[in-house]
């Protein structure tokens, strides 16, 4: 009798254990597929980009692509110098980052080290809203508000220019930089700050000499994200930057960026398979490699200066 109950008990226990085991497996499989989807998507994107780019480079030598100083894929005398588009991307990104990195860092330092709790809780959602505004809205804000404003100071400024687009893009990127930097700085243990104050340091000295270096890897991630956003931003530049390819590093001129060119061609009615159409894949691949390089650099930086408090 006693034996029988024990056995019964045993099988019930085993059954519930098996059920739990199956449930665990199921969850594991689900999670695995979720992870798989993102990996497969990435691989698929790279595959398409590379495959289509190969078609492109069969017709346009890589050498020309890298060294030609004109970008006129739709002309009879077609030129495919990517440096033309890259210059627009670099110039507008530079303007944007010149706004977003200093301001974003200062805001993060202020919110993390100086602002009283109540103010911080009020400012953060407002800042995060900045990042949630659709970029097309920013684009027209740049074109219809910021450019006319700038033209008052600089009468010669063309209606489309990289300066205005870059400035507005910088404002859009501020919350990405500030919110991640702030999180990194707030994660710095109080013990480090106390150590600094105990040495007679002021709040400002503590923030800049101890907290910022301690949070460096997080802040670097914030910058990398900001750079990726700037390089990949499309709508603001398509609307306010002007779409004509222009090899220039002067933000006061209009110029097309890689992204702006891609939308332009993708929206146009070029026949699939034409060299003109294939250019967008080569341009896209360039953009991706560029972002990848940024992320790798960020990764290396983070490893070298990882938090060790």
């Amino acid at each position, binding site marked *: 009798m006693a034996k029988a109950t024990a056995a019964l008990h045993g099988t019930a226990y085993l059954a519930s254990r098996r059920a739990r085991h199956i449930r665990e497996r199921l969850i594991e499989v689900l999670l695995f597929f979720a992870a798989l989807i993102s990996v497969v998507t990435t691989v698929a994107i790279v595959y398409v980009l590379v495959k289509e780019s190969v078609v492109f480079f069969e017709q346009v030598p890589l050498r020309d692509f890298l060294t030609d100083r004109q970008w006129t894929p739709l002309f009879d005398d077609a030129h495919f110098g990517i440096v033309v588009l890259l210059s627009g991307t670099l110039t507008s990104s530079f303007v944007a980052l010149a706004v977003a990195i200093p301001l974003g860092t200062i805001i993060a330092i202020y919110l993390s080290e100086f602002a009283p709790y109540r103010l911080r809780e009020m400012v953060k959602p407002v800042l995060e809203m900045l990042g949630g505004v659709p970029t097309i809205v920013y684009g027209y804000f740049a074109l219809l508000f910021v450019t006319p404003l700038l033209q008052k100071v600089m009468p010669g400024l063309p209606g489309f220019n990289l300066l205005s687009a870059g400035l507005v893009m910088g404002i859009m990127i501020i919350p990405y930089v500030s919110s991640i930097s702030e999180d990194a700085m707030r994660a710095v*243990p109080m*013990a*480090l*700050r*106390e*150590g*600094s*104050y*105990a*040495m*007679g*340091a*002021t709040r400002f*000295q503590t923030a800049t*000499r*101890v907290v910022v*270096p*301690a949070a*460096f890897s997080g802040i670097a991630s914030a910058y990398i994200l900001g750079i990726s956003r700037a390089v990949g931003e499309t709508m603001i530049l398509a609307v306010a930057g002007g779409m004509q390819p222009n090899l220039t590093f002067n933000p006061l001129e209009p110029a097309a960026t890689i992204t702006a060119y891609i939308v332009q061609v993708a929206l146009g009615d070029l026949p699939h398979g034409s060299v003109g159409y294939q250019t967008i894949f080569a341009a896209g691949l360039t953009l991706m490699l560029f972002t990848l390089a940024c992320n790798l650099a960020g990764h290396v930086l983070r490893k070298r200066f990882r*938090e*060790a*408090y």
Partner: protein
Amino acid sequence: MMEQLLATKAEARSLSFYYGDFQALKGISMPVHERQVTALIGPSGCGKSTFLRCFNRMHDLYPGNRYDGQIILQPDNTDLLARSIDPIDVRMRIGMVFQKPNPFPKTVFENVAYGLRVRGERSRRAVEEKVEQALHDAALWDEVKERLHQPAYNLSGGQQQRLCIARALATDPELLLFDEPTSALDPIATASIEELMHDLKKRVTILIVTHNMQQAARVSDFTAYMYLGELVEFGVTDELFIKPQKKQTEDYITGRFG
């Protein structure tokens, strides 16, 4: 007898302290004698750290904290807790070493130079000399002289704690506060820090919180026993440990506490 002969470096007078509504210190009055080691002992939560952190106005960093009473610092007879006194000026004179070593994310050299930089010392020579001197004083020089420009995090726990002591010493503090400086260290590192304290008291007044009764007996000249925010007994260490005046103190030091 010994007490009368010694100069007082600092003196708490009816010091009370409040974390918001909670009163953590209740009218403490006691001296800290010059170039002596004074130990604060007592059960966990009795307010040792709270008391120690009044001396360098650490509590000013957090909102809602309130001091009542005075801490008079000699020789200038300044009340450290007075409203007119800037806590930064207080911390310029009084150094602190924490329970867990907390080196900054900088090199060994820059850690020790920190206080000098904060004070605006521009002369490279002066900084280098003081850093080296402080590292000697903290008995760390021989171990780190080859890697002054490596990150401080590469040092062992005991070395990091001595680095924090060097950091505090570099600015010539008049009073040095230690909050359980060896509780995160192994016995060997602990012994080296205790030995260090013994040498340091020739030039600097030390106030130390410790949980370890043997440590208090070993390193201190005076001991204060605290309980529930009050000072129960203060006296010469040897006398307090051998012949405590209060039953409560006796129970605590003989382990019959609770």
